[in-house]
């Protein structure tokens, strides 16, 4: 087994040399997590806003459930999607199990409650301030949704980022529904888990570094965007 120091060195060489195996894994990870976050945002932003604006029976229960699902263990999400997509499951006929699509679905399930619950909170606060004015101007509730989402954009970027953080960091769901198949469904987190257990520390470390760097970069960019927007929009 290699020493820790050597592992670091090799890891750097893998990154700097754009090692094809490592690059492939990184790109697939990004593709899966970004797709999941995009879909979750497209559903979660309007859904959260709608829950904020309308009063209906069972609303309290729905909000409680959303908040609870923010902490849904990834392995449980993976298990649920596995049951849905497995040969005997209701969606088994599509043969999606152990494909990147299955991983996107599973991560979407993890991200959606985060985006929807945080959006609900942000939009409800805005609505308290805006409701009368928008009603006076003649905006229906439905028409108010895009207006409120746009005016809450600075806070909502953070909500979507929290979703991205969750998607890119989780192992359990993608491992169960993806199967960690080399070159097909192997992403950064599953690869790190596997390579560590096999003793290939350089690849694991290299992937770990890339993962941290990516998350830091995305959050840094969002922070700067938020600051710029805050200065501009007041």
């Amino acid at each position, binding site marked *: 087994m290699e020493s820790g120091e050597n592992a670091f060195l090799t890891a750097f060489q893998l990154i700097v040399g754009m090692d094809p195996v490592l690059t492939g894994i990184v790109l697939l990870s990004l593709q899966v997590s970004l797709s999941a976050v995009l879909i979750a945002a497209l559903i979660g932003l309007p859904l959260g806003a709608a829950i904020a604006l309308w009063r209906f029976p069972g609303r309290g229960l729905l909000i409680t459930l959303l908040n609870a699902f923010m902490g849904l263990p990834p392995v449980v999400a993976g298990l649920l999607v596995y049951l849905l997509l497995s040969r005997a499951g209701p969606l088994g006929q599509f043969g999606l199990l152990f494909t990147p699509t299955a991983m996107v679905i599973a991560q979407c399930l993890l991200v959606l409650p985060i985006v929807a619950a945080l959006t609900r909170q942000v939009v409800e606060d805005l609505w308290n301030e805006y409701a*009368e*004015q928008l009603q*006076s101007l*003649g905006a229906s509730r439905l028409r108010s949704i895009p*207006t409120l989402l746009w005016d809450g*954009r600075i806070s909502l970027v953070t909500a979507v980022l929290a979703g991205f953080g969750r998607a890119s960091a989780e192992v359990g769901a993608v491992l169960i529904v993806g199967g960690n198949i080399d070159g097909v469904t192997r992403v950064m987190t599953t690869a790190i888990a596997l390579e560590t257990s096999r003793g290939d520390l350089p690849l694991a470390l290299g992937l770990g570094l890339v993962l941290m760097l990516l998350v830091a970069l995305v959050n840094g960019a969002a922070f700067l965007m938020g600051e710029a927007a805050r200065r*501009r929009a*007041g």
Partner: protein
Amino acid sequence: MSRLELPVSLLPLELREVGFRHADQNLLDGVTLRLGRVGKTVIMGPNGAGKSLLMRLCHGLLRPTSGSIVWHGAGRLGVQAVQHRQAMVFQRPVLLRRSGRANVEYVLALRGMGRRERRRLAGEALERFGLAAIGDRPARVLSGGEQQRLALARAWALRPEILFLDEPTSALDPAATKAVEDAVQAFHEDGTRIVMSSHNLGQARRLADDVVFLCRGRLLEHTPAEHFFTGPASAEAAAFLRGDLVW
């Protein structure tokens, strides 16, 4: 010059025995009032008299719990026109997090207006209220007085037949207050019916054609301004004008 050569008018507005009850309290009780087609009505009264509530009921933001509010033109114009021909300026305007110009264009978009028409009318409205130079700044970074003027420009772009103003100058300095009063006058000259609440006697004297005096949720007087200020009918209004505490 009148911009409002409307074949059918929404006004007069008639309130019949209007009451509003909330949490076992009568916040407004038995208000009967008729507002004609022209003029500037100032609603006066001590804090908590129900001035803001009365305007919100008229504007349709709230529904009365008893009595009825009738727009005489509603039958011929339809429900949507009733809403589209009114505007309201609040004590603290809520401006969207975008430029002043975009704030005005937004309400025109709500009326289904095309992009070119929106740009033209928004430009006109900003010009009218002396905001053309700062119209492209984010609305939220404007000063309090500029924000209120932007709210007025936004309302003006809608060409309302009636404009409600809820204590529009209570948070402003004298210069900004003057600008708002001038704007109210401009609306009036363009033929817009003005209904405004104020606890500022000087302002009411400057602007009012007639005064509605509320006290503890009841309408005590609705008289021409000169009558109200020289010889109020109710003891409460007389005390209010003297500057005594009325509640």
